[in-house]
């Protein structure tokens, strides 16, 4: 499936090389601002095709290979869309069409100041009052938080002895009264992406804003993670390949021949290949609507650690040449891979649980 899309891969590669020049990437990184002009350009060229999941993975990988800050900024306006696609009502799906067309930017808010790993412990509430829900609470580190038109929000709708029950997802219009977003600054990397803290102060939501069934939110989000973790694996492969590109050119340009460097080069190459195989394998189950969470988590954890490993290797192998900003940006961008959409520790817990379940 992926081999058949070589032409498409080439098209994305050319776009990234043309648009994500060193000056442009450095500028957005320095300013820590969202590249809306590039987003519009990518839309007009049909760079991200949300109807074709294999193409989405290729686009993420090739864009992040050249610059992960810009690459992620261009591929996250749809973040959370799968929750609506799978469980949303007709009105929400109309909004989704406008997200796909680029009219709206979407985001998804799960993490809170008090925790992101323990999803079921979240404190934001959406209490039912008549035929309305009243949303109160806050969310932390939300990508697109300060630029999104709509946000998929996970909130507690009822207390239950099982904390996984009683959570629901809503589609929130960010123009709603009582909503505020504060942009968070001074991130280590992926600085072209927008990250914000959100406050919900007695926001009125209608029943029509509820996504799917009340009380099923936790499961919807876990289902979503089966998809988004594959995206992060693709981002990670892109970053690792970007680092690998730097290592290869350095070795060639400087005519490096020592065996130690050759071994390091081959280790990075091997890990990238393994990450790719694992990711495409996990994705193949997902594309048939039969996700295997343990394979997804293995791919996400392994690929993200590979991105960090490759970036650190690039810094070390290039030595003095790593003092240039383009290499450092790869290093700074890589670390987020091990944190978002479930830290490596959380992935390990998922993997272990499923391994034992299968016994």
């Amino acid at each position, binding site marked *: 499936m992926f081999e058949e899309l070589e032409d498409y891969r080439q098209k994305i590669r050319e776009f990234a090389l043309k648009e994500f020049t060193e000056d442009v990437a450095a500028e957005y990184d320095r300013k820590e601002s969202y590249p809306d002009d590039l987003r519009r350009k990518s839309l007009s060229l049909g760079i991200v095709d949300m109807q074709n999941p294999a193409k989405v993975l290729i686009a993420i990988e090739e864009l992040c290979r050249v610059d992960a800050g810009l690459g992620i900024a261009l591929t996250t306006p749809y973040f959370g869309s799968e929750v609506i696609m799978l469980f949303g009502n007709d009105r929400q799906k109309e909004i989704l069409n406008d997200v796909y067309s680029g009219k709206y930017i979407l985001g998804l808010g799960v993490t809170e100041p008090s925790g992101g790993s323990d999803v079921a412990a979240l404190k934001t509430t959406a209490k039912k009052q008549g035929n309305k829900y009243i949303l109160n609470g806050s969310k932390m580190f939300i990508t697109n938080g300060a630029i999104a038109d709509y946000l998929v929000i996970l909130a507690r709708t009822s207390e239950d002895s099982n904390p996984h029950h009683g959570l629901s997802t809503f589609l929130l219009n960010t123009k709603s009264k009582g909503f505020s977003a504060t942009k968070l600054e001074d991130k*280590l990397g992926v600085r072209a992406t927008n990250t914000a803290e959100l406050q919900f102060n007695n926001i009125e939501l209608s029943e029509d804003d509820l996504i799917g069934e009340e009380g099923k939110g936790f499961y919807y989000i876990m289902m979503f993670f089966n998809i988004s973790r594959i995206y992060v694996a693709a981002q990670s492969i892109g970053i690792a390949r970007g680092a690998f590109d730097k290592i290869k050119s350095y070795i060639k340009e400087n005519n490096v021949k020592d065996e130690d460097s050759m071994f390091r080069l081959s280790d990075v190459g091997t890990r990238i290949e393994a990450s790719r195989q694992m990711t495409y394998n996990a994705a193949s189950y997902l594309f048939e609507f039969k996700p295997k969470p343990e394979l997804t988590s293995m791919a996400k954890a392994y690929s993200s650690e590979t991105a960090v490993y490759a970036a*650190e290797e690039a810094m070390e192998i290039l030595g003095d040449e790593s003092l240039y*900003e383009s290499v450092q940006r790869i290093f700074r961008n890589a*670390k987020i891979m091990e944190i978002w959409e479930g830290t490596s520790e959380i992935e390990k817990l998922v993997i272990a649980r499923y391994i034992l379940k299968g016994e």
Partner: protein
Amino acid sequence: MEEENNILRETVAEFCEKNLDEKKIETEGITEKLTELIASQGFLGSAVPDKYSGSGLDETSYEIILEEIAKYSPSVAMKIFILNSMYYPAVKGTSAEDTLNDASTGKISVAVDFINKAGSIESESGKAKGTLKNILGTDADKLVVFGDSTSIVSGPFKSDSRDFMGFRGLKFGDLHLDNSVQVLDKHSRMAEIMENSYGPASAIGLGMISGALQKAIDYTNVRKAFGNKLRDFEPVSFRLARFRAMESILRNSLYSRIDPYYTFNFAMEHLVEIARYSVNTHGGYGYFKDFGVEKFYRDAIVMKSIFYGTDELRKLTEHVYSEKINFV
């Protein structure tokens, strides 16, 4: 002796706690005022002899200062290191020795170029021309350049400073030379200077390890997930405990001067790993400047990348193979 060292350690720690606001240093740089303050405490020229307005401290005291300062501000520690472990041995015993007076009191700042290896500058009738790339400390008044010979170039320099990931308290960028150059030594002193700096460089590494690790231990002691403190998850606390053991071994190895090659290798091998894990334990917060852990990760990789490469591994290997063989 041990008591004296402990007192020194406490004094430096107290000074850092009070005066080194690393977030400010990272955005504003090491200001002249801060440099003067560090100099007034005798930390700036710690290892420079007192005849040149330094503190003339022994190696251990100097390394304690570097270690304690690096826990708070790797940038300030690096500034002190550049003067004491690179500039001072480069100008020692030469006609430029008296520049140490102003350097130790913070009146002038100094930088050392060990990256360009002077291939990119030409000197014509005592004038240095050309551009030196990637210099840490572009606001320098005096610059030592290592090439086939060791020379000193006097500022003022034209410079292009740019954003840099590591040691952000120091200005970084390219220096354009159009100045007088003085040859200090017909040989390059670089290799010898680098090797002699293993102890002090390890002390900075140790301070960074210690600073990053302490943040992780403190955070995992209060932050909760799944109803437990993070320290209650054994993969987390086991790892932090192992790192603390490594930190302690490194400190003992450094101050007992067992073997600088091994100490330096150990420090550089573990620095990045520990700084990275400190970011991990902080989850999303670790990725933001506010929590003061990502800077250790940035500084760690920069330190490892520029100080610890194939050359150092070769030196270590040579050292190992030159040891007396007893069993064969």
